[in-house]
């Protein structure tokens, strides 16, 4: 059952903080093996949605399934099969990169070698350095290495390109390709638009907590009546501008 279930299913998911509706009746399906780009401006509700997928946060209403499982009730199984690169995270300053990765490996009960994972993300020469001395790009790489532990079926990457130099960006893109080659599903959020078209099979655009558009880049171009050579950025601006107007009307 669950092996054929979509990687991510959100059904009418709403998350409210008091009067603020961070996620608004979100319906979302990400199929197995897809690379899905979750786009939206800052504050659109991307990280909140990811928090709901991982049971960091609990929905006000609606249901979430990850790999066919309930992220709350089946949290152990879901987290065992999912790799997470969170947004705005902090590292354990007095621990080395190796310790960070082995910590996740021990918790996931896999015997991945920290060195090879760190090598893969470009931290091969900082394996035993304390994370407290890392630049933000190195922190991002280390967090990615932690997400890759145990060859997860689903990778959830929240703003994976932030803080990276062009080499780092290229490396993340390569890793996403490698992971999808392996058969993993990759779900990542970004407000860095240029990367999305290079990586994603499908794109969802989130704006003010709502999914305002979804599809391949071509489909989105068609929907917004953008020219065929329109970039994802053009499409994105088109879509979110429209929603800002809508939002104006709602109020």
């Amino acid at each position, binding site marked *: 059952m669950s092996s054929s279930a979509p990687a991510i299913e959100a059904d009418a998911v709403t998350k409210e903080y008091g009067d603020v509706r961070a996620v608004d009746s979100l319906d979302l399906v990400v199929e197995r093996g897809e690379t899905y780009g979750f786009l939206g401006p800052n504050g659109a509700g991307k990280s909140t949605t990811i928090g709901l997928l991982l049971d960091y946060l609990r929905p006000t209403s609606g249901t979430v399934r990850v790999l066919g499982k309930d992220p709350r009730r089946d*949290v152990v199984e879901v987290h065992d099969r999912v790799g997470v690169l969170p947004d705005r995270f902090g*590292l354990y300053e007095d621990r080395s990169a190796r310790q960070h990765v082995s910590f996740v490996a021990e918790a*996931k009960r896999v015997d991945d070698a920290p060195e090879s994972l760190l090598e893969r993300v470009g931290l091969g020469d900082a394996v035993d350095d304390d994370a407290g001395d890392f630049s933000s790009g190195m922190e991002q790489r280390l967090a990615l290495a932690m997400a890759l532990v145990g060859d997860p079926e689903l990778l959830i990457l929240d703003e994976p390109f932030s803080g990276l130099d062009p080499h780092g960006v290229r490396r993340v893109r390569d890793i996403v390709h490698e992971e999808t080659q392996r058969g993993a599903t990759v779900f990542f959020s970004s407000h860095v638009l240029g990367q999305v078209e290079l990586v994603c099979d499908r794109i969802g655009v989130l704006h003010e907590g709502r999914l305002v558009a979804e599809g391949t880049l071509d489909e989105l171009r068609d929907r917004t009546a953008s020219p065929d050579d329109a970039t994802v950025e053009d499409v994105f601006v088109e879509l979110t501008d429209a929603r800002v107007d809508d939002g104006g009307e709602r109020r």
Partner: protein
Amino acid sequence: MRWSPLARSESRTVLTSKGAWILASLVVLWGFRPTYAGWDAVGRNITVGYIQIGVDLFLPIGALLVSYQSLIGERTTGSIKFLLGLPLTRTQILLGKASGRFVGVGAAIVAAALALAGIGLVEHGPFGLLPFLGTLVATLLLASAMVAVGVLVSTVTRRTVTAATGVFAYLLVTLFWTQIVTSVYTAITGVPVDPYEAPASGPLFLALRLTPDGAYNVLTNWLLDVGNSAELFHIVATKLAPGVSVNAFVVEAAFDGGGPWYLHPALSVVVLLVWVGVPMALARRIFTEGDAL
């Protein structure tokens, strides 16, 4: 167990921190206190009394300082996002946190107790193994109660400042516990409490031993066989010595024939276990409900 890597990591955090070892040295330095009253009370077992003196003052504050940031700290830095992403239920996260911090604090405090035992052995010669081992167990029980309180504070609060205030409030209340209890007792019953001639009131004496450190003292005084009281051992012995007047609440001095059953010193084990169980249950309830960020 699923959460043992987390527990290992937590205990390593404690044991590599200066705090744990400062706590251990404070326990030794404060505890080692050769006194005539102490020797007259328990002889060579004064070595066990040193442990009581050091632990009574410094373990509660030390264990709280080591544990109150366990969750709030990760919330503040954002590392909680990795923690919550591990294949663990939130209950397991709490268990891993609490047991890891407990192992860290416990190891530091056992090291302090062994240091005091070594000093006592050299200075005074061999002491009773049973009171020593019993006191060690009681000390670990107190450590687990204080870690449970610290983890609860860390779970309830959303800001480090609030958590620190909570710790401070707890310490203040326990520091003035005797004054609080006697004032409340006088307010309710209208009977003034003279600590030199305490009224033979079961509830009054029970209330005095309901704090973790009070229960710890009752238990260790029982092991040292000095008397039934939440005070330090040499004060209890002095109170019960003929012809000496001390302001201390000691059951044998206030009651003819031992007092009511619920003042039995062994029940302090129950008090300490409640201090472990209730904060952990509350912390679990709060942490598993709603958003964890």
